């Protein structure tokens, strides 16, 4: 299956979610409602920037003009959890901050996803100490982990694309998936 960045198939395939053949169908696109909703959803993931340490600087770089996270529909950084879809945990989660992170996650409406950005958020990183939570997955269900200390913006964009693939697979109608 050949794909362009926006996820449309160029050639008609039986297993594709969205098929479009200009010669046959002109201006008509045939798809399943579920697939179309998932496609809408994955292309407007609004992040909750949980910037806790230096990874947040790379997160800002990802949002700025050079790397431009807007290409993936995720440029609307919401500082209110009630308006966001994906929490990007960027940085060291201390025990003092851990339950606040958890509470902000709980304030996000369903459906919601989590990206653990960098070594600290994924595993505690170099902080093997009394003060640091050893990976945010001890308190949150993480969808994508990003390696690096801090990761390059390209790595975060790759994580976002992988998350988009996951979101596209999740059914919108009917039974919920990924909820805890």
């Amino acid at each position, binding site marked *: 299956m050949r794909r362009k960045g926006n996820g449309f198939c160029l050639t008609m395939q039986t297993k594709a979610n969205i098929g479009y053949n200009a010669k046959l169908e002109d201006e008509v696109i045939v798809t399943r409602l579920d697939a179309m909703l998932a496609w809408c959803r994955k292309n407007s993931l609004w992040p909750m920037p949980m910037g806790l340490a230096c990874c947040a600087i790379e997160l800002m770089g990802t949002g700025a003009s050079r790397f431009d996270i807007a290409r993936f529909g995720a440029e609307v950084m919401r500082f209110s959890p009630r308006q966001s879809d994906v929490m990007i945990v960027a940085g060291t989660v201390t*025990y*003092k901050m*851990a*339950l606040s992170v958890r509470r902000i996650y709980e304030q996000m409406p369903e459906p919601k996803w989590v990206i653990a950005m960098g070594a600290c958020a994924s595993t*505690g990183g170099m*902080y*093997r*100490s*009394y*003060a*640091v939570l*050893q990976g945010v997955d001890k308190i949150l269900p993480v969808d994508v982990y990003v390696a690096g200390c801090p990761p390059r913006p390209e790595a975060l964009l790759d994580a976002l694309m992988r998350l988009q693939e996951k979101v596209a697979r999740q059914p919108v109608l009917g039974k919920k998936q990924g909820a805890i």
Partner: protein
Amino acid sequence: MTAQQAAEKLKEKFGQLISEPQLFRDETTVWLNDAGQIAAVCQYAKTELGFDYLQDITSVDNHPNTPRWEVVYQLYSLQHHCAIRIKTAINESISELPTVTGVWRTANWHEREIFDMMGIRFRDHPDLRRIIMWEGYPYHPLRKDFPLAGLPTEQPDVAFAEPAPMEGGPFVTNPGVKTAKEREPRAKGET
């Protein structure tokens, strides 16, 4: 006025309470023999000797030696452009000394940090609460007898803590050897 002259003036004023000034790498240090007098000494250093800037207060844990605690005051004079260090020792059974917040207001947070991390109390401090760890945390993590990995704690809706997996760490570098491979951090198997 140089730091050495300031130290001598301190000694003139307080006599036996102040040790002979020690000079190490152009830095002057005096020891105060009675920690209970620290506020009076600091007041004199500020008003009479012009040490108007308190750079830092830190503490040292000499566990298992006695006296266990050592509190270090770093003073700087913006008028004379010189720095002086005052050290004082406290026994673990006392673990308390007077606050210097009445001399420099900036001492407030420095003393809270020492109280939080080391568990040394400051008498008459206006607001002696933890400043880094959360309220209700039962330990003082910079003490020598506190494990680096931490100890488990649980306070519902406030915070919890679990010991970190040390995996044979802490990982320490080996300076002074020739190759980068030998220098890089290695676990010493101390845990």
